[in-house]
């Protein structure tokens, strides 16, 4: 059903903390690893060991450099996967009903048995969250590891998305963003979590936490107290300075 639910009981999603992501790509590898062997068609690679490798990924990490008007530039590592939008444009465009948003937890999924591989959903997504698998001809996307989070065969600690489970810095958190008391909702409220491309009206469930700004007092070096830099030395040092300057 490509009609979006008017309400979902839960809004399961990710909160990604741009302050602590170090850009190690472990989540990319964990995502690919889990989704290669679990739900649906595996994520194929083309020419993986050749000169022009490419492949299907459901999670990719970009790195950006941000230059403020005053102060030093900073690097932000930026993981991006499906944002499980409340107003998901990828769902409504689907002609077959393969794309759908679940009413109970808000996860956006693709029923691979119904997908014709027309690619229109990938066009409709502003975030590049959907990729057509070049071997299967089927649209792949983040499932929020739906086959982990409810999987009672796994130890409880593993019942979260593979990317979250593997992140060594804890930059990714998983939870219910419809529940204002959940840990993810509280961190969004405290840190000022934001939507990506809010102007497109997709109402993403996944939220990003902003990196802390760097100190603006940029011209004071942390080593300054140890350095004896004086514009004009006086006394015996001044005399030495002048003498050495003349040599």
């Amino acid at each position, binding site marked *: 059903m490509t009609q979006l639910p008017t309400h979902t009981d839960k809004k399961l999603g990710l909160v990604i903390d741009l302050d602590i992501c170090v850009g190690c790509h472990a989540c990319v590898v964990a995502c690919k690893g889990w989704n290669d062997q679990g739900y649906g068609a595996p994520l194929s690679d083309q020419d993986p060991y050749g000169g022009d490798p490419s492949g299907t990924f459901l999670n990719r990490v970009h*790195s950006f450099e941000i230059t403020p008007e005053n102060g030093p530039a900073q690097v932000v590592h930026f993981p991006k996967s499906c944002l499980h939008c409340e107003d998901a444009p990828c769902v409504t465009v689907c002609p077959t009903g393969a794309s759908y948003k679940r009413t109970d937890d808000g996860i956006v999924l693709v029923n691979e048995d119904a997908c014709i591989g027309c*690619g229109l959903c990938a066009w409709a997504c502003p975030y590049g969250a959907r*990729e057509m698998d070049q071997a299967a001809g089927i649209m792949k996307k983040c499932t929020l590891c739906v086959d982990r989070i409810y999987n009672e065969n796994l130890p409880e600690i593993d019942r979260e998305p593979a990317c979250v489970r593997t992140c060594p810095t804890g930059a990714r958190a998983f939870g219910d963003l419809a529940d204002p008391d959940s840990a993810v909702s509280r961190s969004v409220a405290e840190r000022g979590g934001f939507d990506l491309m809010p102007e497109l009206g997709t109402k993403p469930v996944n939220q990003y936490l902003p990196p802390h700004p760097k100190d603006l007092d940029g011209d004071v070096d942390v080593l300054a107290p140890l350095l004896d830099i004086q514009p004009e030395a006086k006394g015996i040092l001044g005399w030495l300075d002048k003498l050495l300057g003349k040599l």
Partner: protein
Amino acid sequence: MHPAPSVIIFTVLSGIGFGLMTFLGLGAIAPTGWGAFGYFFLAYALAVGGLLASALHLGNPKNALLAFSQWQTSWLSREAWLSVLALIVMGLFALGAVFFGAHVRFLGWIGAALSIATVLATSMIYTQLKTVPRWNQWTTPLLFLAFSLSGGAMLAGLPRLAALLLLATGGLLVLHWRQGDTRFGASGSTMESATGLGRIGKVRLLEPPHTGKNYLLKEMVYVVGRKHALRLRWIALVLAAMLPALNLLLFPAGLGALVVAVLAHLTGAFAARWLFFAEAEHVVGLYYGKR
């Protein structure tokens, strides 16, 4: 956007086929017997041929029948329904014209309306996408309709009407390009809004996620040939609209002039449709520092 040949062929040929059907249905020409067979054969060959070409770009065409299921939200599904309904209704109308020399007026009108609706549904597949600001404007459906009707009018042998429609197509082409050129800027989507990091400062891509290509870049960040865009715009405008319009206005009675006009128009229409895709920028390119 990647200009897939199957989709370009589909939108151009099907558009002209449904345009011809519109004029047949409206009774602008009223052939019977073998003459009618010729006209309807041409219209069906173009419309159905185009639809079959569109199936070539599906990754998994065995599920194609399911594409009829989601007409409540999906323009692609609506297009599937409208095209099949148009083909059925016009088929009944054609049976009357070919075998009984009869034009069932109301069937023709319904068929013409369905043909126009099919072309508009096709155009809405592109127009609806907020992610491609160049397409997301009111001139897109009108442009598709103008191409469809001017091609159809030429094939129906209606030189004066075709010339007028061709001039309208040319005008809409220019308008679509001019408005399209400012759409991305006006959409408000920037690298800053895409990353949400504009609150800190100016954003620049430092490292892409992978050094190689990927589906997103190939499909939605297609930049090949954009440097020829201006030249191709002139070629498209002259061949698709100006030259055939001039030809038909100067030699309205000549069959040779009509053939030249049709061939020029087709070439120009393919160039214009190639540009429609190749010039269109998807907002996902912002995550890759590209447009």
